[in-house]
């Protein structure tokens, strides 16, 4: 028999007075998954997390944890633990006592507490700092204490609310990889809230992109990036070129869209699309390249308006028409390669048909 999902939301809705924070949502998070809730601020991701934690109760719907209905249960009776945005450490307690807090609540034997706290501190690489107070630690260390405190109880689900938000960029990257490592080691389901798409892509097995209280798409990172289902998702994750046109042909795997000033554009790998409808197409800038199309590929002609040097990459802005500008992302392969395309020149831009995705009307 398959293990029950770590967390299951069934038609969960949350209202605060007249405003709907989370529209009715169904979601299944499997055991051992690293799952992220991604979206701009106010999209309902934190509210969703707080409902799973038990800090908020859904207005309607049910929440299951490892198959058990936990709807209505308060926080301290759920098998999940949370890592808070600003750590929320107990300032009057030492690192050891912070981590031991949950074990003390449960009146564990002193020996067991010592063993478990030390093991957890070792897992987050904080051994030797046990006697310090939180105020004597750096931001990164405080973050690890918060993590250790939530992990000592061996929760079946760990909830993380933008835990790296207060750290600087470099430390964030380090902690991202470390969190991923930790999650693999302990095998606990992680539910991670973030507004940083790169962070979500780096760590997650699957990501739910949220906006306006709705889950727009739930998929793995590659699918979200390559095949976003809506324009919002395409825009939120990575950068995109958008074209609008009308579907003229749709047979099996192949769809042809007539785009003004560009011509017929072929898209493959999509489901059936209604012929005659207006659609928006999305192409990632790095899938575009200069030169004639290979057989079956798409192409457009335009004038290079600008060349932007961004370090590892170079961005070329190609105006196909007054209303259509395509961004082409090329690797920076050295001074020689950079001289190829200059501002003001006319060039042909081409891209494969499977790099074209329909992101809605």
């Amino acid at each position, binding site marked *: 028999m398959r293990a029950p999902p770590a967390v299951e939301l069934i038609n969960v809705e949350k209202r605060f007075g007249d405003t709907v924070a989370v529209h009715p949502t169904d979601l299944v998070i499997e055991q051992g998954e690293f799952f992220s809730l991604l979206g701009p601020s106010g999209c309902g991701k934190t509210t969703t997390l707080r409902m799973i934690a038990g800090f908020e109760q859904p207005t309607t719907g049910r929440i299951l944890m490892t198959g058990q209905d936990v709807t209505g249960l308060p926080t301290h009776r759920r098998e999940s633990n949370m890592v808070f945005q600003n750590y929320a450490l*107990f300032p009057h307690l030492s690192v050891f006592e912070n981590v031991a807090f*949950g074990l003390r609540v449960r009146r564990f034997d002193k020996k067991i507490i010592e063993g478990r706290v030390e093991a957890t501190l070792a897992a987050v690489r904080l051994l030797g700092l046990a006697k310090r107070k939180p105020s004597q630690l750096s931001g990164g260390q405080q973050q690890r204490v918060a993590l250790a405190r939530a992990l000592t109880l061996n929760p079946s689900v760990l909830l993380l609310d933008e835990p790296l938000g207060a750290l600087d960029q470099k430390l964030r990257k380090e902690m991202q990889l470390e969190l991923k490592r930790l999650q693999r080691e302990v095998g606990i389901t992680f539910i991670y809230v973030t507004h940083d798409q790169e962070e979500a892509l780096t760590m997650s097995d699957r990501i739910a992109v949220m906006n306006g209280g709705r889950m727009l798409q739930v998929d793995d990172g590659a699918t979200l990036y390559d095949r976003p289902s809506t324009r919002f998702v395409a825009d939120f994750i990575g950068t995109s070129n958008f074209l609008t046109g009308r579907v003229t042909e749709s047979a099996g795997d192949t769809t042809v869209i007539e785009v003004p000033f560009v011509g017929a554009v072929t898209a493959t790998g999509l489901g059936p699309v209604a012929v005659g409808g207006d659609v928006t197409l999305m192409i990632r800038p790095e899938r575009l390249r200069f030169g004639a199309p290979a057989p079956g590929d798409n192409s457009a002609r335009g004038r290079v308006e600008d060349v932007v040097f961004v370090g590892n990459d170079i961005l070329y802005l190609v105006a196909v028409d007054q209303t259509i500008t395509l961004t082409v992302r090329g690797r920076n392969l050295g001074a020689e390669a950079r001289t190829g395309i200059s501002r003001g020149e006319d060039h042909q831009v081409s891209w494969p048909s499977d790099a074209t995705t329909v992101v809605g009307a």
Partner: protein
Amino acid sequence: MTRGLLRWYYLLLLLLLYLPLGMLLLFSINEGTSLSFPLRGVTFDWYRSMFDNGQLLGAVGNSALVASGAATAATILGTCASLAITRFDFRGKGVFLLAALLPLVVPFIILGVSLLILFSALGVSRSLWTVAAGHTVVALPFAMLVMMARLVGFPRSVEEAARDLGASYFYTLRRVIVPMVAPAMLAAWLVAFTVSVDEFVIASFTVGRDPTLPVYIFGQLRFANRFPQVVALSTLTMLVSIGLVVLAERLRRSGPGEAKAA
């Protein structure tokens, strides 16, 4: 121009506030027994004689007892009330807050009379207990103002973290909230203590045979030859009160728990 004017205004204000206190200090070390210039010479006899006065020391003891009791009761009640107001929503919250803070604006003489009526109606004979009860009422709003200010700034997520780790509300209160707000509670206690030590009107209505310090001082005003001693006593009381308030303010401002976001 405006700045200069403001400065003079401020100096005048300070003078009006502190001149009487300065006079008190001055006459407490004046050799003469009448409160008039010219001064006769410096002496500490008045201070010394205080310690030979058994009645006076008894009044100091009574005041300390009453103030400790009232401050403890006001701090505990004030902390509970502040928790209720800052953490929970309930019907009649506004009325509750208003009722608790009302002693700040009700004239003490009215409070004193009503307490007197209440105690005699209940058949409670007047003693230090009745004074302490009255002082608890007037010290409560001060304790509450200190505690509410602290609890409003108290990070909610710390409480949630404790709950999330399995702690009941009372466990969280005992092991997290109270230790974190302990400095503020001590500040509230000191403020309440000062309020009680200095209070005369309510004490004079509710006191029994054992006088508190202000009641004793007032009683001594009839005897001209003891007057300088009363002045010395008042000076000491004032200095202790100022010291306590300064200490309370320090405590209120320090204290851990302003969770530092790194």
